[in-house]
Every structure is written in C-alpha cells, then in structure tokens.
C-alpha cells in the first residue's frame, strides 16, 4: 500500500504531502512564537518596573549575519541537488550546519556571560523573556541541525534510489530553516535594539 503524493506533487494543489505538511507546521510555529511576542508586548508596555537590559549588539549582529548566510547556503544546497551535483550539495549542507553550530556557540557564550553575572531568567522579566524567546529559538536551531546532519550523512542511499524524495526532504528542511532565520530576524531588533 502506497501513500500517493509523497514524492510527486498532486496536480490540483501543486504540492507534495511533505511540503504542505511543513507549511502547516510553520503556521503553528508562527502562533507559538506569536504568543511569546504578544507576552513581550503586554509585559513591556503595560507593566511597571520594566528595565531594558543591555545585550551584546556586535555579537547579535554577527549571529544575524551567520543565520542569514546559512539560509542562503541551504537553498544553494537544494539548488545543487536539483542540478544533480551531489558533492556540491553536501558541501553547502555542511556549511549550513557549521553556521548553525557557530550561532549556538556564540549564543552559549552570551548565556554564560549573563549567568556568571547572576542574570538568570528569574532576575527580571526582560531576562525571563530573553531566555525563553532565544532558548526556544535555539531549540529549533538544534533540531534543524540534527535533521540536516542526518541527511548529510545518511542521504546517499536515498539519493541513489529515490533522488526526488531526497530533494523534497532538503526542500522541507530548508523551509524549516528559513523560518528559524525569520524568527531571529525579529528577535534581534526586539531584544537587542529596542
């Protein structure tokens, strides 16, 4: 028994199942982060005692550039697959993962710096929101990296037997990764600059 449209697209929707699935999942993620953004707005705007803390803007800027670059490399990885250039695909995918790792390393450095100064989430609501927002985001970065690492090392078999299916998986992973980048694009100015 085979589930139709797992690899090729259904004509009237123009989508294969995984692509529709990931867009739906991303819609739910928009609402998830939306709740946190809404919380930020409500707590900051309406409640006394809000203190704007200082975060390391150059580091944040660097991280933003790293994530944007990784968004480019994942889409180049997909393009390479469509051009049937498997090794180039692996190179771009590896760079994407490395960018993600760089982001995580910088983030952990930032977190450590805050913790050693006693700025835990319980310190005040700015830090509570900062750690929750960036922590949830970092969790998503890690999950994306995990999936990409799996595809990097175990993709060859699928490439040989069902190349379109692998391309689809990369496309779906890419969509998730772009979303992760997108969230950071909003997090950076809101937390670091405003």
């Amino acid at each position: 028994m085979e589930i139709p449209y797992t690899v090729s697209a259904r004509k009237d929707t123009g989508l294969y199942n995984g692509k529709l699935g990931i867009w739906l999942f991303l819609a739910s993620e928009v609402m998830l982060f939306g709740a946190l953004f809404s919380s930020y707005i409500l707590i900051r705007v309406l409640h006394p005692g809000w203190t704007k803390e200082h975060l390391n803007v150059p580091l944040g800027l660097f991280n933003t550039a790293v994530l944007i670059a990784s968004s480019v490399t994942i889409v180049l990885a997909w393009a390479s697959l469509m051009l049937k250039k498997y090794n180039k695909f692996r190179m771009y995918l590896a760079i994407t993962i490395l960018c993600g790792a760089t982001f995580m390393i910088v983030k952990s450095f930032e977190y450590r710096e805050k913790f050693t100064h006693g700025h835990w989430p319980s310190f005040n609501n700015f830090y509570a929101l900062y750690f929750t927002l960036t922590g949830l985001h970092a969790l998503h970065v890690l999950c994306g990296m995990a999936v990409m690492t799996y595809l990097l090392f175990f993709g060859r078999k699928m490439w040989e037997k069902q190349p379109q299916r692998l391309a689809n998986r990369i496309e779906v992973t890419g969509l998730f990764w772009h979303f992760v980048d997108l969230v950071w694009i909003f997090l950076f100015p809101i937390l670091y600059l405003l």
Partner: protein
Amino acid sequence: MDHATTHDDGHAHDAPHHEELGFWRKYIFSTDHKVIGIQYGLTSLIFLFFGFSLMMLMRWQLAYPGQPLPYIGWMFSHSMPGGVMTPDFYNALGAMHGTIMVFLGIVPLAFGAFGNYVVPLQIGAPDMAFPKLNAISYWAYLAGGLIMLISFFVPGGAANAGWTAYPPLSVITTPIDPKLIINALDSSSLGFLKSIGEWLHHSPFFGGVAAVASKCWNGQSLWLIGMILLITSSLLGSVNFIVTIIQLRCPGMTWMRLPFFCWAQLVTAFLLLLAFPPLEAAGVMQLMDRVAGTSFFLPEGLNVSYAGANVVAGYTRAGGGSPLLWQHLFWFLGHPEVYVLILPGLGIICEVITNNTRKPIWGYRSLVYSTLTIGFLSFTVWAHHMYLTGMGTKISAFFQTTTMMISIPSVIILTAYFISLWGGSIRFTTPMMFAMAFLPMFGIGGLTGLPLGFNASDIHLHDTYYVIAHFHYVVAPGTIFAMFAGIYYWYPKATGRMLNEKLGHLHFWGSLITLNGIFFPMFIQGMAGVSRRLFDGGTQYLHAEPVLHWNEFISISAWGLGIFQIPFIINFFWSIWKGRPVANDNPWDATTMEWQTPTPPPHGNFLVPPVVKRGPYEYSVPGEAKDYTPQNQ
C-alpha cells in the same frame, strides 16, 4: 463494481506490500489509521469514565456537605480523612474532571478516534498522509494522559487551580522542597532510594537536573508537562489531518462531494493547529514561573499567605508580570477549543441524520460555509470569557459583537439539521435517537450561551452555576450524545458486529433523562447567584439558601447517569464477541465511501482504487432501484 462482500481476497491487492508484521507492530505500535483510531477510542473512553467518576465523587460532597463517604470512603483515606472531603481535594477533583474530560476524553475521541478511523475511509484514501506521525501523536497523547493520572499520587495531590489554571494561584501552589521528598522516601519502603537521592543531590550536574525534576514533582507542574505533551500530540495530528484531507482525496472526490463529517474535521484540525500553540507557550511560561523563578504571570508586590498553604516561605519574586496575560493566552486556545469539541460531533450528527431519514441533508452548502465561518470567527471571540477583568467598553463591545456573530452560523447548522428531519423516513435506530436528542439539547446549550455572550448580563452570570449548566448542555447531551451516536453507527464498521439495540435504547433514555436532571436545576442555581467551584456547594452564602435543595437532586441524577452507562459498557464489550454479525458490508445502507469497502476494512482500506462519481448523501434518488446510491456508483 459492487466490490467485496468477499473478505478473503482482502490481501490479493496488496502485492507490493511487505511481509506480515509481528503482534507488536500490528496491534500496539501500528501505523494503520484504523488501529490508531481504535487506540484513541479505547483510551479516551477510559479517561472519560475516570473523569466522570471524579465528578460523581464531587457530587457526594455537594449533596451532603461534610458527610463521610459511605462504603468506599476508606479508599481515599489520604485525601479524605475519615471519608470527609477536604477543600483541596474537592478543588483537585474539579480541576482534573475538567481537564480530563476535555483534553483526555472528548478531543481524542472526537478528533483522534473518529477522525482517524473514518476520514481516510470516507475520502477514499489508503491511510493518513503521515502514518508514523500518526502513531507518534497517539503515544504522546497517552504519555500526557498518564502523567496527568500520576499527578494524583504525588505530594500535594493533583492540580487544583481549575482546568483554567489561572495564576497567581496556579503558580504558587505546592512547590515542593526536594529535601522533603528525599526525607519522605526514608520513611517508606523505598528507603533505599534515599541514598540515591542524596548522591544525586550532591552531584553538580545531576543535582541540578534532580532539583528541577523535583520541583516538577507536584500536581500543577505535572499538569503543565502533561498539557505540553497533549498539545504536541494534537498539533502533529492536525497537520496529518489537513494534509490527508487536502491531498489524499481519491479521484472524483471534489470539495463539494466531501462528506460533511470530513469538512468538520478539516476545520477542527485548523483550529487545533493555530489555536493550541499559544497555550503551549503559556504552559512553558507557567512552568518556568513555578520551576525557574520567573514572573511572567506574577505581578509586583504579591503577598502570599493562606491557612495551610503548602508554599515555600519568604516568597520573593521580581514581579512585573501579568496574570491577565495567562488568561489571554489560555482563552485564545480555550475558545476555539470549544468549537473543536462540537464540530466533529456536528459532523457525526449529519452522517447519522441523513442516513436515518433516507434523504439528503438539507443545506449541505450552508453547512460547509457556516463551518468555515465558525472556524474563522472562533479566533476573534475569546475575551468574552474575560468580561469581568476590567477591559474598556469599546473592546468589550468588540468581543460581544464577534460573539453574537458567531452564533449565527451555529444556528444555521442546527436549523439545517431540524429541517432535514422534515419529510424523512425516520429509522429510530440507537444512533438516530442520540442524534435527534442532540438537536434540542444542543439548542438549549447554545441559547443559554447568549446571556453569557452579552457583557451586561454576564456580569450577573459569570462564574456561576449558570455557566456550568450552559457548557455542560452543549458538551454532555450535546457532544457526548454525538459521540455515542458515532459509536453506535460506526461500531459495526470496525468490528463487523452490531451493538444491541435494546441496551442501546436503555442507555439512551436513561442518559437523556438523568442529564437533564443534573444540569437543568443548575440554571436555577446560577441565576440565584450560586458561584462555581464552591467546595461546600453554596452553603456559606445566605442568598443561595433557597436553591441549595437542588444539590441532592442533581447528585442523585448524576449517580443515576453513571448507572445508565453500565448497559453501554456491557453492550460495548459483549457485542465484540456475541453481537449480531453484520448482514453485509453496508448494514446501514449508507452512501459514503467508508461503507463501500469490506467490514472491517483490510490494511490499505480499498480492494480496488476508489473513484467517486456523485455527492455524499444521495438517498432516495428518484428512478434508482434502491433508496440509497453509494458515492462510487
């Protein structure tokens, strides 16, 4: 073309299919939507029974406040010393009754069980779009449910801040010092665990983990963790449903030929997809408030003290948070959630009514457009649960307006069902009895929502028994009747046997009468001003005195309702082995696709790839030989 009345070549078609799966992969960790549907069904029915039992316990206290529980009181000696209910235990029962019935009972039954089993069959698909994800959804649900059940047995007992878990109460209840747990271990038979506990406590990494874990070892925190698992389960499930319904419809199954049941499930899935995540975020935030010391929901200057409070002394927090923030995030889900509760039921009622009147449902298009409208509007009404929180009149009027607007499509749907009865050849089968009773009962529930939706009248009625009566009318003789209708209707499909009609009618009449006995007097009590969640049932208030005599009547009706579920339980299990076998694959002479395949269906569902040629409810088509014409004919 009249496929299989023969069941034996069920696997002939499955040539490319793999080898036979072992017992565990076939029945326990299956990815087949029918098995998963049955898993959801059985699990949710057990949870419903458990949640119902909690309520029956509560009703003893309300009928006879302060009296020891006879015969079985000794079973609860820990929470009910001497058999007498404590306020904390009463609140725990109330909070968990609501949580279990809504999140562990009805949603998994309506969406997880019926949706999973019936939708792929009705659209002519071999399975759901993502079978493995489907299995994960079920196991996440079970895990969340078990965590909720475990919470009854941890120090401090289960969550007792209401199913709505409002802070600050939900944040400050029973955080437990880890040392207390370790010390408690010492005096129990599990003393050997104490040394492990002490070692953990001293190790830096494990000590940290253990400290956090022990802070979660209480009712409210486990409630939050359970909710996070349940929400994740629902989210994965909703992605599956939407992709399945959009992508896996068989050839010929256009949107306007889709059975209304599938439309209802589609909109339900969208509600779950977009409304649940804010509650997941809020749940994480409340957990952080309890465990990590944050103040998302705690305002500045909070003063905590009450008699017997199981609270760590010297309560200091940064403050600056907002209890109202929780309410917004909770009700942002909470309102779409009630449409999640009713929409699958409305879908089932449509199937049952059209099948048992032998005519097409009246107003198919209006049903579809009304459901889509309800889906959209349900995201815009949530603060009608918060009229008394001090919002300004303009915004209050906004929510009142959207609330009034959303009642219109609901009325259209109910009216369409009433009109569908007109001129029908009604077969008074058990499913049809439940479906017909649903109509006036849901009507009462819906109409009594109107005074609650108006902000002015809500001032008087908010948080009274009127609210309890309103929502129980929509959910109990509303949704649950629709669930029963669905069970009696589709049980033959899943088992190949019919449920006993006599027991079914007994179950029906007993339930209908006792349900009204429980909830109708509650309107009276509510209008007289009896608040909800009062452990003594209102005896502390002079103004409530004239209506308190109803408490005993309500409780007896509630226990009566429990007794009338026994014929159903007996029927359900007895009929699996001894029920009358179905005469053919389509015992109800139905038109929809799930009945045009073997009963029960094989793995892969259809023996030949299905093709749909007509609408879903072509009953009594003039000129046809039979009074029903299946969709694929």
